[in-house]
């Protein structure tokens, strides 16, 4: 700040150039507003890049939340176990297969998190190929059984716990319980439609169904099953009675186990249930646990992210290059303006600040427009798919900032170039 006089006298204090910050800012904005078309084209890359970012992240979170919504409480607490046929049993020509231990229900219910667990299967006739007959009245004669035109109704058997796990809605009577099951009593639960087809409307007369001629007392009529509603058109009898009359399940319709767990316990129970059922051969059970909602969501997010975020990143880089290019061209075009500014007292840093502000403003504006377009896209897509748009403020709010950073980085080199322009050169033009 102090120079030297010809002799040794210090130069008087010179007040240095200090433009007001808002003046520099308005100079930069003026530079943008004066060339609106170019400014818009320049910010296009940033608009697309930031817009893509917001759209992808928005769609991912939206789709992710739809997926997790599909995980109803019902399916998240359900485990199905299929008894896979033992190849050794086939080899010896054994048609029946049943790998569940007799106390399967109890074993599984001891697992922490289990609410109900029980075995069920579809009953086949003892002689293969011959359908079961289900009638509301005793057959006229055993001999004419084959000629009898019974109603085609499927027969299922389930333990009381399995029935409970299915979540039945009982319209009349009750479900069969442990007591009746243990005693091997011939009781049955009928579905609404089966009862209708058999002409049974009331239980007060204690009606029965005859399965292959054997009577079963109808203790209840269910109107709905929350799990495995495919059993609905049929008759459900306890496994104890079914095993006595029809034997163990055949390999053509193997046994299943249905487990209802507490919410959140399904993964844990599923990991333990194989060993609990058969420590020697846990592999004989095919355990169908609900997909972990987190892992599924993460998987979807991940696969979308890696591909599209890469594209968005590339778009942003292209946007940055666009801004850098245009700003550089602008610097070269405005060389004489820069010279003029230097001649009226602008320091190189003032010139640099002006161009840096211009590029940052372009980036920020592009980011803002891109964010708006991205949000609009997410909302429109969600509407057409009847989804609920889910936008994470943590991704949406900083998005315009991303544009500003892109602009700032892109403007650095042109701004340095502008600062290095010599006023002598600039004013020669």
């Amino acid at each position, binding site marked *: *700040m*102090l*120079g*030297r*006089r*010809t002799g040794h*006298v*210090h*130069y*008087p*204090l*010179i*007040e*240095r*150039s*200090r*433009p*007001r910050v808002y*003046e*520099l800012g308005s*100079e930069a904005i*003026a530079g943008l507003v*004066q060339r609106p078309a170019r400014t818009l084209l320049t910010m296009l890359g940033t608009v697309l890049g930031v817009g893509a970012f917001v759209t992808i992240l928005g769609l991912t979170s939206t789709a992710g939340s739809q997926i997790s919504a599909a995980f109803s409480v019902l399916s998240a607490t359900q485990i199905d176990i299929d008894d896979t046929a033992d190849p050794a049993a086939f080899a010896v020509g054994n048609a029946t297969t049943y790998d569940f231990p007799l106390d399967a229900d109890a074993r599984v219910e001891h697992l922490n998190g289990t609410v109900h667990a029980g075995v069920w299967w579809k009953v086949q006739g003892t002689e293969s190929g011959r359908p079961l007959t289900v009638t509301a009245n005793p057959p006229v004669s055993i001999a004419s059984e084959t000629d009898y035109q019974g109603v085609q109704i499927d027969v299922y058997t389930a333990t009381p716990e399995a029935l409970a796990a299915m979540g039945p809605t009982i319209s009349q009577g009750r479900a069969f319980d442990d007591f009746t099951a243990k005693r091997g009593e011939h009781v049955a639960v009928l579905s609404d439609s089966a009862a209708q087809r058999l002409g049974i409307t009331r239980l007060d007369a204690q009606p029965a169904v005859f399965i292959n001629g054997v009577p079963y007392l109808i203790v209840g009529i269910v109107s709905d099953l929350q799990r495995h509603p495919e059993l609905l058109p049929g008759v459900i009898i306890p496994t104890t009675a079914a095993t006595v009359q029809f034997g163990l399940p055949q390999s053509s319709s193997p046994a299943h186990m249905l487990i209802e767990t507490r919410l959140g316990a399904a993964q844990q129970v599923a990991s333990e249930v194989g060993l609990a059922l058969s420590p020697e051969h846990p592999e004989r059970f095919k355990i169908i646990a609900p997909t972990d909602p987190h892992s599924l969501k993460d998987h979807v997010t991940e696969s979308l992210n890696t591909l599209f975020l890469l594209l968005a990143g590339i778009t942003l880089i292209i946007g940055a290059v666009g801004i850098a290019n245009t700003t550089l061209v602008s610097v070269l075009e405005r060389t*004489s*303006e820069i*010279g*003029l*500014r*230097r*001649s*009226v*007292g*602008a*320091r*190189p840093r*003032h010139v640099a600040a002006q161009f840096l502000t211009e590029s940052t403003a372009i980036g920020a504006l592009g980011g803002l427009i891109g964010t708006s377009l991205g949000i609009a896209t997410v909302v429109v897509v969600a509407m057409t798919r009847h989804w609920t748009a889910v936008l994470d403020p943590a991704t949406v709010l900083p998005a315009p900032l991303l544009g500003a950073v892109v602009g700032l980085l892109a403007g650095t080199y042109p701004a340095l170039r502008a600062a290095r322009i*010599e*006023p*002598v050169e600039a*004013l*020669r*033009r």
Partner: protein
Amino acid sequence: MSSDPPLLELRRLARTYPGPPPIAALRPTDLTVRVGEHVAIIGPSGSGKSTLLNLLGLLDRPTGGQLLLDGFDTATLNERDRTALRGRRIGFVFQAFHLMPHRTAVENVMLAQLYTDRRRRAERRADAVSALTIVGLEHRLGALPSILSGGERQRVAIARALVNKPALLLADEPTGNLDSRTAKQVLDLLEELVAGGVTLMVITHDPAVAERAQRTVMIQDGELTEQQPAAVTTSAMRSTVTDSIIPVVTRAR
């Protein structure tokens, strides 16, 4: 006041471009310009006019000698102080006007205040308007350069050079882009300004422009020759404009 140092003093001022080969664009030169003088520097192109202009305008550094402004050597100043001094003490008028095409006349004038004047916008605008009034453009405040005539554009540029009340007005071929009638009007304006106390140095190759000056300095191959000694006493010319300069340069106490 007679003990005041001259406004501008060149002591063996020289500028050599490093080349190769090195070019002595300005050979060691002595020149003194007093406050209120009107000096023309005339020479053909390639004579070193631009080099001298850049040195006088603190746009370039000399390679030898001293350039004294207000009695102080500017060659030893750092870039920041030279820039500040340039913005506050020197007004430039260019051949090509160098107006911003998207800014109105008054906005173009106000550009000169941007870096050195921290007063409120309204106050600065008032100064810009009075500068435009001095050059006779008070009715064209909001006009864009594109609708102004050449003469009007140069007068806007002159107003811009005046608005910071500089000690020295440096005009580089101020009429080079103008027809002879408009050129005469601009020269008349510059002469009025000198009469009002402005110190003016005009750099030109046009003898018609040079003969308006009180002194003419010939430059040829980088060497100055005084054509005509100062005919007018400068102290008599001093008056309002320079006296009202905001004392941006104050003596260190």
